[in-house]
């Protein structure tokens, strides 16, 4: 009996699943009535159904086309979800050809007096726009969308770029209830699929093969470049590889701070072309190993560019006259390139206009500048090589592919070390890369195209040391002197943020978060000498920091050098935490105890360790005669932390925050 009951229940469940009809136009009243998402009540919208179908269309007249058909049904729960009523489809344009969006249709469903009302997407809701030389977009603005609406649209993206299948999204920032993906690839194209391994979601993929028949004749030559041999009305059978995903209840992607690049953590499927094998032509291999990718890039322009010397030969000779020491040569050349050619904010590992033009015009892209740098270094007898990498916003590639690189820097190999250089950043010293280039790893390409990985993450700890001398004044103010020293990436970031400001504006900025302060006598040494430590000194008068109650002085010794908030506020963490660079921050406050007072209480000394010494915070007070010294040292040796370490990291900062806000008490000596 019980069994029967379960059986019936089972049937019912099946029944209810099938009751949902995902055919275009078959939206149910229940879908429009639904008020909140059953599993994710906070979702502003949800994808009720998404079908993604990519295949190759072979047509006698037009040749082969790569077609992607998308059908999406989205539920809008509230006003915030209305953003999803706009669908933007990106298209790619090359010099001679471009992707097209066609067969677009859309319907918005609303409920009126219990009846389903349909509003069709018409041409006045479809906008096509060419954004720039290579990119276009088509926007669908769904009509009559309001809270509760269900929208549905369908379109085909037809692409002549047969060898690149776009990434297939498997996760959005809203839940996806039902996802159907089907990719059909004829055996002419050898694609390897990759899931994003950094996503925490798992997907089942079904693979199968099917025969298909292809008729072709002698006269039919267009489109498929490899049809060379002539046959008369021939019929050939080929295989198609079919990949299918059918998944339900995909959770939304969450947004967090201190993440390198959010898309790195989304679920998606990406396709790597390994070879092509067209009828009656040999297999053509495409890049498969990083070694191969690097070699291909090297052979296609890089090598030529780093061996071109004619345009700078004479200038370099003058520049290096009388210099024999390799280190001096390196810094001379590096500074010369940075001064001579400025970065036009465009990435790329190839020269846009050629380094020669960039040299003449004084501006160029990353390829222009850093390949020029490699060429000059090599010409001067330095063992320099180009290093390919992927910038943070290009993500981390999942397989060897040319598009996995989008940037190039220079590397100089020493017997047991390597110096990395990026001349596009006018504040960077040797071995200091801009943040954009500190991602994943780089591929150094040696002579003749052999290559190896190099680590791009900064390893050397940058140090900032601040020392403040404080004296109490009669009027409950304090006055003092601040001396700060910045090295390495601290100095670089100081130069990026402040070096260009004029004195008045900088003083304004310095005073901004320090309370009721007046700063004078500002002096900055080595502001512009890249590679040197910056030394900044100033005097100050600070009011409203001393509490004088019943013959006691209460005072927070860290004054404006205290950290004010914990940067980590969320309770839970989903993705790894990325800090900028390894660092040491020393803060020393020397306080002169006013005459007639003695120390009544001091904060306790503390040492907090985190992750076996990868992080350490020390807070130590010492009294020596009339002087009280407070030392705060923050030592961070590691910069990437897993979500599991989040709570410890948060606590670590919390303890520092607590220590920094503690006060000393001085009492009038009797």
């Amino acid at each position: 009996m019980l069994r029967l009951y379960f059986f019936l229940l089972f049937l019912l469940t099946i029944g209810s699943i099938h009751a949902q009809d995902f055919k275009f136009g078959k939206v149910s009243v229940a879908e429009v009535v639904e008020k909140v998402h059953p599993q994710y009540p906070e979702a502003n919208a949800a994808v009720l159904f998404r079908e993604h179908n990519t295949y190759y269309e072979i047509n006698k007249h037009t040749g082969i086309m790569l077609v992607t058909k998308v059908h999406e049904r989205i539920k809008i729960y509230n006003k915030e979800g209305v953003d999803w009523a706009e669908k933007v489809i990106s298209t790619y344009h090359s010099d001679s050809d471009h992707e097209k969006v066609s067969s677009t249709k859309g319907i918005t469903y609303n409920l009126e007096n219990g009846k389903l009302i349909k509003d069709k997407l018409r041409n006045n809701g479809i906008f096509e726009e060419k954004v720039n030389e290579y990119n276009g977009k088509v926007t669908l603005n769904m009509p009559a969308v309001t809270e509760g609406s269900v929208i549905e649209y369908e379109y085909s993206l037809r692409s002549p770029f047969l060898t690149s299948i776009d990434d297939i999204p498997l996760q959005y920032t809203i839940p996806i209830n039902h996802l159907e993906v089907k990719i059909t690839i004829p055996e002419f194209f050898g694609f390897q699929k990759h899931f994003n391994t950094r996503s925490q979601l798992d997907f089942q993929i079904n693979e199968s093969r099917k025969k298909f028949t292809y008729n072709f004749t002698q006269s039919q030559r267009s489109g498929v470049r490899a049809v060379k041999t002539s046959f008369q009305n021939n019929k050939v059978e080929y295989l198609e590889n079919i990949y299918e995903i059918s998944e339900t209840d995909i959770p939304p992607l969450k947004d967090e701070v201190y993440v390198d690049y959010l898309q790195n953590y989304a679920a998606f499927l990406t396709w790597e072309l390994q070879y092509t094998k067209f009828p009656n032509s040999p297999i053509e291999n495409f890049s498969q190993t990083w070694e191969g990718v690097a070699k291909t890039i090297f052979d296609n322009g890089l090598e030529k560019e780093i061996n071109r010397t004619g345009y700078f030969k004479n200038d370099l000779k003058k520049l290096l006259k009388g210099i024999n020491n390799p280190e001096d040569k390196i810094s001379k050349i590096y500074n010369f390139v940075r001064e001579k050619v400025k970065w036009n904010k465009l990435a790329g590992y190839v020269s846009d206009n050629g380094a020669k033009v960039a040299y003449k015009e004084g501006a160029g892209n990353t390829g222009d500048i850093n390949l020029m740098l490699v060429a000059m270094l090599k010409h001067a007898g330095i063992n320099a090589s180009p290093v390919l990498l992927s910038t943070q916003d290009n993500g981390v590639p999942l397989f060897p592919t040319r598009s996995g690189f989008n940037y190039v820097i220079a590397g100089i190999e020493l017997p047991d070390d390597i110096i990395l250089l990026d001349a596009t950043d006018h504040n960077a010293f040797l071995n200091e890369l801009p943040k954009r280039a500190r991602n994943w790893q780089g591929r150094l390409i040696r002579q003749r195209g052999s290559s190896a990985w190099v680590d791009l993450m900064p390893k050397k700890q940058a140090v900032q040391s601040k020392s403040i001398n404080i004296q109490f004044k009669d009027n409950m103010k304090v006055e003092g002197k601040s001396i700060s020293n910045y090295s390495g990436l601290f100095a670089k970031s100081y130069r990026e943020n402040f070096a260009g400001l004029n004195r008045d504006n900088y003083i304004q900025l310095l005073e901004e978060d320090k309370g009721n302060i007046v700063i004078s006598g500002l002096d900055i040494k080595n502001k512009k000498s890249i590679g040197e430590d910056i030394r900044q000194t100033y005097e100050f008068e600070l009011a409203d920091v001393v509490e004088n109650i019943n013959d006691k002085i209460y005072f927070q010794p860290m004054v404006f050098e205290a950290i004010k908030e914990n940067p980590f506020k969320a309770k839970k963490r989903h993705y790894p935490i990325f800090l900028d660079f390894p660092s040491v921050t020393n803060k020393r406050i020397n306080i002169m105890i006013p005459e007639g007072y003695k120390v009544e209480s001091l904060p306790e000394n503390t040492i907090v360790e985190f992750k076996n010494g990868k992080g350490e915070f020390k807070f130590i007070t010492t009294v020596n005669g009339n002087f009280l010294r407070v030392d705060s040292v923050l030592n961070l040796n590691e910069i990437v932390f897993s979500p599991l370490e989040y709570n410890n990291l948060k606590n670590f900062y919390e303890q520092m925050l607590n220590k920094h806000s503690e006060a000393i008490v001085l009492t009038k000596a009797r």
Partner: protein
Amino acid sequence: MRSTFSLFLIVLLLSCFSLTAQDYEISAIAPELFLNANAVVRSEEISIEVKSIDKIIIHKKRAVTVLNEYGERHALAADVYDKDRKIKDQEAYIYDEYGEEIRKIKKRHFKDHSLVTGGTLHSDNRVSYFDYTPNKYPYTLVYESEVQSSSTIFIKPWEPMSDYLISVEQARYQFKNPSQIPIRFDERNMPEKVERTASKYELNYSVSNLPARQQEALSPDFTEFSPKLLVALEDFSLIGVKGHAKNWEDLGRWQYENLISERGRLPETTLAKIEKLTAEATSDSEKARIIYNFMQENTRYVSVQLGIGGWQPIRASEVDKLGYGDCKALTNYMMALLQSQGIASNYAVVYGGEHRNIDAKFASMEGNHVILQVPQENDETVWLECTNQNLPFNYLGDFTDNRNVLLVKPGGGEIVSTKKYLPEENLQKSKTNIQLNDEGGFLASTKRVSKGIPYGNTYYIERRKKRNQILSYKEEWGYLKNIDIARLEFENNKQMPSFTEIVEFTGEKLALKVGKRFLLPLNFFKPEVEKLPRNTHRKLPVEIKRGKMFQDGFIYHLPEGYTAEAIPESVNIENEFGRYVLDVVLKKVEGKEVLTVNREYVVNEGRWNPEKYEDYREFLNLILALNNQKAVLAATH
């Protein structure tokens, strides 16, 4: 023979031209023009020629010396174009500090980009630009262009001082009008040393050696003191639509007749719906509320600015079908909906965002946004923002409050001002009970009510996700340590309107342990006081655009066994800028000590002379200092 000669003459003329016009060495700049300047306009020549009612040619040549990286944004080589406005020619030159030409950029090297790439904007405006990467400062960029437009309604005012931190060596403006269409013109804030000749159909203006202005906190709008020449044609054309206007009344009427009227028809089904919805309503104001709500529920903001659509609303029937539109379309739709119930309202053109007035004394195409005005017979005028789906009825907020708008009425245009919020209307009031524990931690329960402008800055939190709501409080009260939100509740009273937040949370180390005592800060929440930079040579008047009022109560329940050993004195400061009152009272309730702190902080709106800046700054600093006040708690045994 003849042709050779003329060719020679042309070559001669060209070389003459280049010799005289291009003297851009840095050493030629007068020293006072470097002061506070990131860039110097070496020479700007704008020549506008009206060929006919629908053909205007704008020739521009602008040489800017860029002194540092911050000056780059003043030296642009770009023009905007669309179907109605064509770029005939574009060129740019770069000179080094000695005035030597180092680059020449031809039209074909300019790049083309869609002007808007933002989400819900559709427009056929594009920009043709050259993006120069300097490798040295200073350098001089000379940009020359010729643009032809068939819309003569827009004649860009001449504003030789384009911004702060840029000085002007020489700027010339020429307006030629061979078509002899009558013109109007007017000046604003012209410097004394301006040179001008004005005849019936031609204007010549020039200024030289204007030093750079420095930006100062709390200063009036830039347009209130920067020089400007306004020019308009009495007969004009806008994308093929002709018109005639001498003043705002004419221009408003023309806009109404050509752009707005006859675009309000609604389908029967919608009319029936509105009829039904408002059937029970007893007053026009109640009806208007219902209709506003209907409009908000059924539309969203999508901007479509194609051709004349940049100036004319889409028909109400179209908006009804699509369920979206831009500010013009939605305002026109709302106007039509109200009209169906016999409620009259007016389309109102305004500058949205930072405070900016439409010039009441000179009629020209102005504004960047549209709202709706609903006149009331015996009551304050009602204003409706139609592009927001959540704002309460008759709430403008800081986007469009207190500024001139143009009412586009059938009878003619009229300039009126939108609602101004008084300090007591901009009230944020809170009451917090704080239970302290004997480790310095606390359990707090807060109720905060926001009205007026603060309403608009708080009410949207209700619609955020819980996780983000919590994070947002943790950010706002980031100075409280390790807070953990236990309860969140909101009440959005759209009638008032007022927004109430109820937050219960715990935190640590509020009271600082020092030896055997605790230091307890009196200001549980910090008052919203800005820290102003020191400025001993203030030049511009001080302007506080909106008054505000904060009333906060903090009731500290001391932990058992503790007594307040010392409490700061109460404070009461009042001056022309506002008022700050801190009232501290210690009581015993059921054997436990309760410390009650009542704080009131009022900032008046107004305008003061430059020398008052330091006084105001001192007032704020005093409040900031009082914010640090602490009570001392000691154990009783």
